[in-house]
């Protein structure tokens, strides 16, 4: 019962944040409601027992990624355009229909079982066992990916004149 109450409360907060993200006009409001979504998702992870995932959800997503996003948001007021009509006429009904079908199939036709609080405890030690033995190669590959991403971000975000200056000095 406690599990259901906690799941419903934070699930509703989550969906409300996601809908608010869509309804807000200014990106800063969308960004703050995205923080709400990520925070309540961390609680949902915690309910399923994924402690490590909940912690990095708060640290990486609600912390780092959102700071990056909000840092950019002083770009000023934008003019509004209506966008493509195809997205409204075909996209939204398609998304709604797909969501309804998936939800119906999940609720009526699936046997996913039930979960108690902390159904699968994901302690950092167990995750690390798996990460540094079975998934060692993918882990190292992601380190290369992150390195390339850092260099790419620096190159892309550098001001053109500073690039010229470095070329002259070098």
């Amino acid at each position: 019962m406690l599990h259901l109450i906690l799941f419903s409360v934070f699930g509703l907060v989550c969906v409300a944040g996601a809908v608010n993200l869509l309804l807000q006009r200014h990106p800063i409001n969308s960004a703050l409601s995205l923080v709400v979504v990520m925070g309540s998702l961390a609680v949902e992870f915690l309910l399923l027992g994924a402690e490590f995932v909940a912690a990095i959800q708060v640290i990486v997503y609600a912390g780092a990624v959102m700071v990056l996003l909000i840092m950019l948001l002083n770009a000023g007021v934008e003019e509004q355009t209506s966008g493509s009509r195809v997205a409204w006429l075909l996209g939204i009904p398609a998304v709604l229909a797909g969501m309804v079908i998936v939800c119906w199939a999940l609720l009526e036709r699936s046997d996913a079982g039930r979960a108690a609080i902390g159904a699968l405890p994901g302690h950092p030690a167990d995750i690390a066992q798996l990460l540094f033995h079975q998934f060692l190669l993918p882990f190292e590959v992601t380190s290369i990916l992150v390195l390339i991403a850092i260099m790419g971000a620096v190159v892309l975000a550098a001001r053109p004149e500073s690039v010229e200056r470095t070329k002259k000095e070098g």
Partner: protein
Amino acid sequence: MVPLSYYLVLSGILFACGVTGFLIKRNIITIFMSIELMLNGVNLSFVAFAARWQQLSGQVFVFFVMVVAAAEAAVGLAIIIAVFRTRETLNVDQVNLLKL
């Protein structure tokens, strides 16, 4: 005890919200946030299936998804900065030419 399908439905709703935002929003940063929303929905279903099959690999996959999402955020925001510097707009309808 909560049926795991509730978690999957929640993740489906989040994913649908992300797709909707991707389709109807015109600000490039909001579109970016919609993508993050979709990734979060997928992460929730990863964790739910990990609990269903009692396999920790699902949670390790969430870790990898987060790493890739962080890398994507860094590069994507750098691209957004570059676009804003050359065109002085963040509206995707104004960014319709590859060449200036």
